[in-house]
């Protein structure tokens, strides 16, 4: 094993750029994904059977197909031309980001829906029987309870998403796995470059999931107060 490339600022720079791209992809996707997911989850609570069916299908189809396949489909669907920002071509990001938004929104919509459903039906009835409207009940009674189940699960989705950004290497986004592949082809250190990439991923995911566990315990405790 030869890890000497880690002493070369050139390779370090490539790796750190990849790491930064991965972090940005994950954070932006989780943010946008959550916004879409909240919309999807709320719309799925509507009375209209058609809307519920369409969004239910959306969630199930996205969750039931591999993200790589989704990426390839969106990639071929979009045919994005070169979009230069400075000397940087952003076009590979478009189908990639789109895939991540769509994918994470489907998983998170399900997490949010489950969190809302986990609140006892009696809470709805007690609130509605006081004369509170559907919207008021949702905002003041149901959501504050649901969020305790939703937040930790969203955290886990974030961890998953950090790992899944790696599929974007297939569409030419210079994220961590892509950069590792580049280093491999220049140094011929096949195993080494991917071991380094794996370590970087783990350094991102492990603290995040530990943080989420802490948060989960805190939220559970606040229930006892």
């Amino acid at each position, binding site marked *: 094993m030869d890890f000497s490339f880690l002493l070369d600022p050139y390779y370090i720079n490539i790796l750190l750029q990849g790491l930064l791209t991965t972090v940005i992809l994950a954070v932006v996707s989780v943010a946008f994904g959550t916004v879409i997911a909240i919309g999807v989850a709320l719309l799925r609570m509507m009375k209209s059977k058609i809307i519920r069916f369409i969004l239910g299908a959306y969630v199930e189809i996205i969750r039931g197909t591999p993200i790589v396949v989704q990426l390839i489909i969106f990639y071929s669907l979009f045919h994005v031309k070169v979009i230069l920002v400075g000397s940087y071509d952003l076009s590979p990001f478009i189908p990639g980001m789109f895939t991540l938004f769509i994918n994470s929104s489907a998983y998170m919509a399900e997490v949010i829906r489950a969190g809302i459903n986990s609140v*006892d039906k*009696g*809470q709805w*009835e*007690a*609130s*509605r*029987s*006081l*004369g*509170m*409207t559907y919207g*008021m009940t949702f905002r*003041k*009674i149901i959501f*504050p*309870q649901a969020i305790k189940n939703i937040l930790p699960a969203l955290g886990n989705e974030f961890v998953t998403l950090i790992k899944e950004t790696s599929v974007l290497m297939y569409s030419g986004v210079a994220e961590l796995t892509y950069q590792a592949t580049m280093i491999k082809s220049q140094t011929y250190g096949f195993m080494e470059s991917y071991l380094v990439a794996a370590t970087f991923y783990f350094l991102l995911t492990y603290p995040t999931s530990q943080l989420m566990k802490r948060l989960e315990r805190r939220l559970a405790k606040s*229930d*006892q*107060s």
Partner: protein
Amino acid sequence: MTNHKLIIDVKNVSKVFSDGTLALDNVSLSVKKNEVVVLIGPSGSGKSTLLRTLNLLESPTKGEVFFDGISLTDETTDINLLRQKMGMVFQGFHLFPHLSVLDNLRIAPVSLKKLSIHEATITSESMLKKVGLLDKAKNYPNQLSGGQKQRIAIARSLTMSPEIMLFDEPTSALDPEMVGEVLNVMRELALQGMTMVIVTHEMQFAEEVADIVYVMDKGQIIESGSPEIIFHQPQTERCKEFLKRVIEKK
């Protein structure tokens, strides 16, 4: 009774659930102001369903329910406004666990009546006093015993100054030693002239507070009358049969 104003009028209501269960079969009943109405009957006879149609937690499949002369199911009816005037107490309490006791009481009046926090606090505290739990104002629901939770649930409904209170087996989920404290609060309400509809298995209590008792079986009201008649000279075989079974269980 001096005042004969009808508060609730149920006219030929039937309820068929989506799975085909006929829970109410052409039921009619009315509740006058200041009256205490008790619903009894075997499990599955439709008592809860009937009570829940009174504030439209269940909507009738057929027939109509009127509150203060207003049809609940009329398209122009604002059901939320009517529900503000009808308190409901559940077997399972359903206090809001993320809110303190005081906030459980204040949330509806502050959200709906646009009371200031200060005004709502005053009302809430007087209701807490009424159920004897003013010292629990800052506590959270899961720090309370079952009997205390139910008394808070009653107080929560009272803060909206309802015209009528609906109770669905308010003591059935309680340990026996806590039943009394809840019944005492209800007795007090009855004495103060609160209009109430109560579903209960506490026959002694029913006999004591009821102005009129309705006996249900298989989605129908099979007999109604004063507690003296229902509990001591029931007219129908089905009613006699039911009461015999209840008393044997004791």
